[in-house]
């Protein structure tokens, strides 16, 4: 994209018209969901900093971020798909199975590079199958990725892994730095999260394909009629998501020194969706960006960290987390109510 093409978009892009709409609705300040969640994060952060001993320390801050780094990376992959009006439930399978395959292959005596190639090929295949099913066979994304994730998890269980938890082996040591290293005092998982965030932000905002993703998410039919390669771009979204999932899995494996493949059975996928949607990326597509994922991740991370410090049980943590989230989306719906006239069909 040349400079000449870019400049008009910069001048008359989304935000001025959004501001105009806001002004037209009565001139009142109406915070978006993104703002509300960010405000909620700040309030919680402030409360915890003042009331919780040991919360606002540099060490705890790094722990907080490290704990949610993997969740954040997964959220980034999911964000690309959700912006393109889809959803990828097979992300956890991509997180668990191909990285597990790396560990297993290295354990069996293959070289690390071969194992990595195999893992990314598997991730690529998953993305391609997902994309083909959704773009060409027109299976709803919710259903297609549910089934493909189930298939991949089954494949891992039946054919790839000997045990549910695949152990780290010495041949993997080259990758240890991804999980346990530090760059300038910052744990590498956080750096990886930042790295992935920058790459995807550049993709979404600065490349032509990235704007195609927004266009397709906003109105798939209009995008097709306008001549965009809608189907290949949808395939690309799912390929990117599953590759990001594989990447997150490798970071996870490196930081816990094993790959617990039963993670597929957990409710992690729901946390990922929460991060994305809570941050303000609407499930109806075409809205939001990487900033929203970061905000969502920060909120979830803060809450989890504080509750861990308060020594709450896992169930109690979930309960509180759920209630806070509910309050967040209810506030959003009061401030930005859905309009029956413009609500989109199938907008669940």
């Amino acid at each position, binding site marked *: 994209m040349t400079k000449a093409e870019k400049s008009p978009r910069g001048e008359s892009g989304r935000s001025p018209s959004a501001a105009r709409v806001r002004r037209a609705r009565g001139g009142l300040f109406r915070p978006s969901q993104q703002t509300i969640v960010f405000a909620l994060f700040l309030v919680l952060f402030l409360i915890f900093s003042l009331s919780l001993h040991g919360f606002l320390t540099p060490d705890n801050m790094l722990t907080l971020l490290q704990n949610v780094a993997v969740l954040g990376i997964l959220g980034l992959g999911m964000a690309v798909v959700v912006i393109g009006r889809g959803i990828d439930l097979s992300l956890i399978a991509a997180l668990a199975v191909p990285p597990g395959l790396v560990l297993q292959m290295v354990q069996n005596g293959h070289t690390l590079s071969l194992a990595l190639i195999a893992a990314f090929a598997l991730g690529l295949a998953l993305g391609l199958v997902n994309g083909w099913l959704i773009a060409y066979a027109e299976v709803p994304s919710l259903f297609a990725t549910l089934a*493909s994730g189930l298939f991949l998890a089954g494949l891992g269980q039946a054919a790839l892994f000997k045990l549910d938890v695949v152990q780290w082996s010495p041949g993997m040591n080259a990758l240890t730095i991804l999980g346990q290293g530090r760059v300038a005092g910052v744990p590498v998982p956080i750096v990886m999260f930042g790295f992935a965030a920058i790459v995807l932000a550049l993709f979404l905002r600065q490349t032509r394909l990235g704007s195609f993703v927004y266009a397709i998410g906003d109105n798939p039919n209009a995008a097709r009629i306008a001549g965009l390669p809608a189907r290949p771009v949808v395939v690309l979204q799912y390929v990117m998501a599953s590759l990001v999932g594989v990447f997150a899995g490798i970071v996870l494996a490196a930081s816990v020194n094993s790959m617990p493949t039963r993670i597929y059975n957990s409710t992690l996928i729901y946390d990922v969706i929460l991060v994305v949607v809570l941050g303000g990326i609407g499930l109806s597509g075409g809205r939001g960006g990487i900033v929203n994922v970061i905000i969502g991740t920060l909120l979830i991370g803060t809450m989890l960290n504080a509750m861990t410090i308060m020594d709450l049980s896992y169930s109690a943590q979930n309960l509180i987390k759920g209630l806070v989230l509910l309050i967040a989306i209810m506030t959003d719906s009061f401030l930005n109510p859905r309009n029956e006239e413009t609500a989109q069909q199938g907008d669940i």
Partner: protein
Amino acid sequence: MSESLIRLRYRLWPDHLVGEILSKRWTETAIPAIVLIIVAVALSRAIPGFLSAAGLADTARQACEIGFCVLGMSLVIIVGGIDLSIGSMFALTDFCALYCLDVLNWPVWGVIPVTLVAGALLGAVNGVLVGYFRLRAFITTLITLIVYRAAYDLLIFGHSNQIAAAFPDIPSWNFLGGGGIFGIPSIVLVYAAIALFGHVFLTRLRPGWHIVAIGGSRRSAFNSGIPVRRTIALCYIASGFLTALGALFFAARLGTVGGDIGVGLEVTVLTAAILGGISLGGGKGSVAKAMIGTLIVLLITNGLTTLSAPGGVNRMVLAAILLIAAMIDIRWVKNRTRIISKVYVSPTYHAMPPIPSTAAGNGTPLALNDRLRDVSEIAVGRIEAPEDIILDGEDNLYAGSRHGDIIRFFPPDYERMEVYAHIGGQPLGMAFDRAGTLYACIGGMGLYRITRNHQVEKATDETNRSLRSVNDDSRLRLADDLDIADDGRVFFSEATVRYEMDEWPVDGLEARGNGRIICYDPRNGTTRTVLRGLKFPNGVSIAKDRQSILFAETWGCTVKRYWFAGPKAGRVEIVLENLPGYPDNINPASDGNYWLALVGMRCPALDLAWRMPGFRRRMAKRLPIDEWLFPNINTGCVIKFDEQGRILESLWDLGGVNHPMITSMREHRGYLYLGGIMNNRIGRYRLPNADPDFVQYDRRWRTAA
């Protein structure tokens, strides 16, 4: 020889049924049903005793427990939402039932309502949030899933030992869990009752239609005044209630509160619903689909467990079957209407004798002439599509219009006009009864009457359903023309039962007897079909003996006579056959004969095509509709005939300048008034030697018995 074979083949083989069966809504479920049968057969062959009575009873109990949840999920999906919290609600209500029974030692009749109300309340949380607060269903129920699950985990932490230690031996409780009537498990009976009610509810009752309407188009439903928010909230409540019902039976059967109860249930339930053909996004779905989906998922998972496949293989097979079935189903639903439109038109064999000559100067009454060249025109450009016209004793002229009105023109020059009545559908044939009430056949609506003070009333819009028809032929699709017998009975024609008003020429391509003559009796309000299998019956007129009607069959090119009373009652005789054109309305002339409009003239090409049904079917399949061979309806004429079947004279407009297209004519005080369904005018032709005082319905009712 080969032609008689063709005739035989088209007489014996009912081609038209294929399209009619496919256009039934229930064929949408065909693919899931076939998958179910394949799965059942494959598993019963692979596993001995899979379909035995004992095995089935156990499967049935599980199926119904999940089935209740699938019904709830389906309802929510149909209304345009999704309920991911079903698994957690299942666990919570299971706990609720067992806690009340085992820890609080409540009687069973107290446990059941409390559990169901608990389920409804849990659903009501979703309902209020999604319905009234209009939160997004997916994210909201995702959060309630997490909250409910956390609550369940906290609750069983304190009570699971107490519940595990209790062994309630209560007959009624055991009946729920393992009992039955005549070998049918109790849960199956309850499920059958609920499913039956659900089917009636969704397909026959107003609230059910509201649900489908909201799912189909939330905006339209809102604009048409349906209580969108309340209905959506109630759907989520129903989902919670049904889940609680499933959990209740589950609790009675197993009596456990393990940590993994209901984990992932929402995925199973969602899979079942989608596999059954309930489309995400709403507006489509039925109880039958939910049941089929449940059975498929359950048979596959149970079968694989019985085959003791490793967990991983189990998952892979399930996923693969789900994907393949979903892909085929989506293709099927997407292309179904295209397939229907290809096979619905089913031409049949129809042979006609050679066309009689209408050449100018051939010495027959049919010879072309120019007598209609100098008709005067009424209301040029001010009326659209006056299929029929009628005049009353005060010389007012009534004509139907395409906009759904009956327009009245005032004498003497018929320049002044008013909307006599607005009906909403296009008026076709009209007639006055003894009291001066105007009866009109309304295309697509039925038989209506307009009283003298402009009151529009529906006379009838349905007749008796014939036993062997696949299409529901009780509704009147294309009521065409009518006349009224002395006793007040209205005989009217319905041109076709297979096509709507706007596609009536396609019926001519089929040339099958799709039409019928129907009798409406205003004395007791009954409607009965008296003749069926007619080739586009059109004009109807009471004959002079007042015991029979003359009716025209447009594609049959005949005029027939049907006796409804008297010694020949029930008989049909041919009056005119092998007409040179397609006959339309019939009305009496002042000299005791009849006027007949020919809406279009036959041509050899279509006559030949009528003898070649295969050719016409290929044409309908392969060509776009505007390139099909259709009957000519651009040029026609008016003929006069008598009851013996003699054609006496004909009136033509050779150049087609003033009045080329004629569907009806009415003689009135020495003039012939002409109407045409494609015209923007009414023609008025001065008849030489006609009775200057003839007013059709005045004379008709003056001389009536």
